[in-house]
């Protein structure tokens, strides 16, 4: 799927645009064929599809009313029963419904935070690798600084000083988890830029922006994608951690928030497992699914990782 792969033999002479499209389609197919051979990757993908489906159809299946405290259907802290398969929470809300509803927030935050993190990382990495010199040194020292800072501590500090909202959590996770991406992308940028065709592009009058966006970016994109998939899982975990530590918005239903509520209500010491276990498992499964996908993508794109093909 890299840009310089040779296009399959074209049946008829085609324009450059069409040629590019064909080439892309072919590499996608090849990517999928290779990905298919990773059974764990497929499992991860299936799980993700399941969760995505649950999240997208939640407004139809459970509806936003499930999070309403004034219209809670049950008594507080009921154990599982026919009406409430997973029992009720401290307000008497249906925990199964809340679990499904919470999928939305957890996935959304995971995706947005990963996106933010990857965007920052790619931007820093590409510009540092492209411009080199003093700028590179400064940016990499900043990256190093973020790299050695314990992410969670930094995120907690950020979430504490800012107001409690989803945006804050996304920001806190996003700005603390980008340094690995930046490092990786910079390395790849250096490798790409040392290739002769970049020199040719420059000779033909390609400016910084052209080189970075037309030549470097497409070449680092696969790496960024693989990295993004892996970051999503850690973002979801980070979101759950922050919410569990009480730094989330208490009025928003998320898995970490459910765990935090359970702890505050005393579910741990009173052994109300139905309040604690399902959100915990959900977090673990989603994080696992993203990791499985990320690893599979990584090994497809980087044959040197030595996974049987």
């Amino acid at each position, binding site marked *: 799927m890299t840009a310089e792969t040779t296009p399959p033999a074209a049946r008829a002479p085609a324009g450059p645009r069409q040629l590019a499209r064909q080439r892309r389609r072919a590499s996608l197919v090849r990517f999928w064929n290779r990905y298919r051979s990773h059974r764990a990757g497929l499992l991860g993908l299936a799980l993700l599809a399941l969760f995505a489906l649950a999240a997208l159809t939640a407004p139809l299946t459970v509806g936003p009313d499930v999070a309403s405290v004034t219209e809670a259907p049950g008594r507080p802290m009921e154990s599982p029963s026919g009406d409430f398969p997973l029992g009720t929470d401290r307000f008497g809300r249906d925990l199964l419904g809340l679990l499904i509803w919470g999928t939305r927030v957890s996935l959304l935050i995971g995706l947005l935070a990963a996106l933010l993190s990857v965007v920052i990382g790619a931007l820093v990495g590409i510009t540092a690798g492209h411009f080199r010199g003093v700028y590179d040194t400064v940016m990499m020292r900043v990256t190093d600084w973020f790299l050695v800072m314990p992410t969670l501590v930094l995120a907690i500090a950020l979430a504490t000083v800012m107001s409690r909202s989803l945006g804050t959590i996304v920001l806190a996770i996003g700005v603390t988890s980008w340094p690995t991406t930046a490092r990786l992308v910079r390395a790849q940028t250096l490798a790409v830029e040392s290739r002769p065709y970049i020199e040719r592009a420059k000779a033909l009058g390609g400016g910084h922006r052209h080189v970075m966006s037309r030549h470097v970016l497409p070449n680092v994109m696969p790496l960024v994608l693989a990295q993004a998939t892996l970051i999503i899982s850690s973002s979801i975990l980070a979101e759950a951690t922050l919410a569990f530590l009480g730094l989330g918005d208490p009025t928003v239903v998320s898995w970490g928030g459910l765990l935090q509520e359970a702890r505050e209500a*005393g579910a741990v010491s009173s052994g109300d497992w139905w309040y604690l276990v399902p959100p915990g498992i959900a977090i673990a499964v989603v994080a696992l699914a993203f990791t499985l996908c990320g690893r599979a993508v990584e090994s497809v794109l980087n044959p040197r990782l030595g996974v049987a093909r």
Partner: protein
Amino acid sequence: MNAHDRRSRENRSPRSGTVRLLATVLTLAAVVPAPSALAPQRASAADGDKVLTVAVAQSVDSLSPFLASRLVSTSIHRLMYEYLTNYDPKDAHPVPALATKWTPSADKLTWTYTIRSDSTWSDGRRTTAEDAAWTFNKMMTDEGAATANGSYVGNFEKVTAPSPTRLVIELKKPQATMAALDVPIVPKHIWEKVGDFSDFNNDKSFPVVGNGPFVLTDYKADSYVRLKANKNFWRGAPKFDELVFRYYKDQDAAVAALRKGEVSFVAGAPALTPAQAQSLKGVKNIRVNEAPGRRFYALAVNPGAKAANGEKFGDGHPSLLDERVRHALFTAVDRTTLIDRVFQGHAVEGEGYIPPRFSTYFWKPSASQKLAYDPAKAAQLLDQAGYRKNGDGKRVGKDGKPITYRILCHATDPNDKAVGQYLQEWWSDLGIGVQLDCLDNVSDPWLAGTYDLAFDGWSVNPDPDFVLSIHTCGALPATPKDVGATDNFICDKKYDDLYARQLAEYDPAERANIVKQMESRLYDLGYMNVMAYPNAVEAYRTDQIKSITTMPEKAGNIYGQDGYWSWWSAVPASADSSSDDSGSTGVIAGTVGGLAVVLGAVVFFVMRRRAGAEDRE
């Protein structure tokens, strides 16, 4: 100390999760002598001392009686220092403590206290009237020493000690609280060496000289507070040898420690949750004690923060200055649902300012005065006040923007968050937005007046003077930069007049009558809306504590009493049974741990040797 917890915002301390807890556990392990590292709580049981361990969560603000205002600190001061008077555990009437007798002059302006001669400081010196006179004089002359209890001496003209057993207080005006001066008396010979009272926290050299039932021997912030029984206490020595307040920032961890017998008592902060109480009820050797609380749980409104010099500050929403809006908001709060759902019956619906437990001063609004739950009426009130709905169904303020109120809530209190969610839904039906600002430290926005509404709560003393005084104009901070005794910047002329009248009223019935008028006024103002009186829900191990005095004796609470009765009276369960099984757990744990270490070491060395052998080949 009158206010057992100053503002609930200070009363609840941040709970910072497992890291802190782990640190606490590690510190404790490091503090107690070696063999007990695996079971720290058994350390002193081993040398025969009977230790009463209490799990607490609230951080100590200061151990100086001149500064402390949180419940945990003032409770500790009750144990460390004797006050002039104490409250009877049965019905809370003033009983002799350091003073054996107190008599007013005919004009009630000169009060003479007889100081007992059988009370000694823990360094051997006798406690005299001179100590008491010095304490009061210090508070009258030194601004820093008046921080916590200044309200008691504001009216004092002169305090003298003509003889070691006679204390004379002359007043400027009559003062009804003369038999309820909740001021710890400190030893003059120790405290006169202190330079800056606003800066001295009394936690540097141990043991701290005192004359109460216990002597403070050690303190480590957010780890533990250790007190030793004062065997020479005039009322009789406590039955336990040592009293330790140990920190559990996580309430579930405290409950688990109680189940395991690592602590004898869990107070809960502020109370055990319904689920915890429920799960502890059936457990062997554990008793759950539930009592009508001393606290009220209220929704405070920012009346436009201002200082005594007239300067306004903060940014409270202007619409809240309209009484109709405040009434509308509270009318849309269904208190019955809150009691039923959030407190699950472990609270009583809020009425007046003072909880029903203090029946003399309890007041409830008449049917016509009451702001009963009625959403339709609330909407009507808002319409009348001119805050009408726009096209999106949101009510707009005078500035044309939709109204969203910021509610200040304690991130550490689950009830705040739960009630906040209800408020959000009830008020959004009215067309009003709610932004729940849950913070670990609510003091900063609170003191700066940068909030619209806030969750508030105070423990009330048998004498309500203090909790009433925090809503007077006199309690406002001198300038916006200062910290005043005020709760939420209420300043109302009519209320102030009533306050002055009740303070000068010596006839109990008439005084109660005036206090009720004050409560009525406060209710009508709508700046302080009491939602509930939460019960005190606490639990202790009966195999460690045989008996303990509750206050009031019938259906009373144990932690945070007005006095030292509970810990002073606690009787240890027969030493054998408790130390036996606990001792054996400690031994077993120790043995297992030791074996594991030895095994690990053996495996390690075998591996090393094997590796070495391979290297040699």
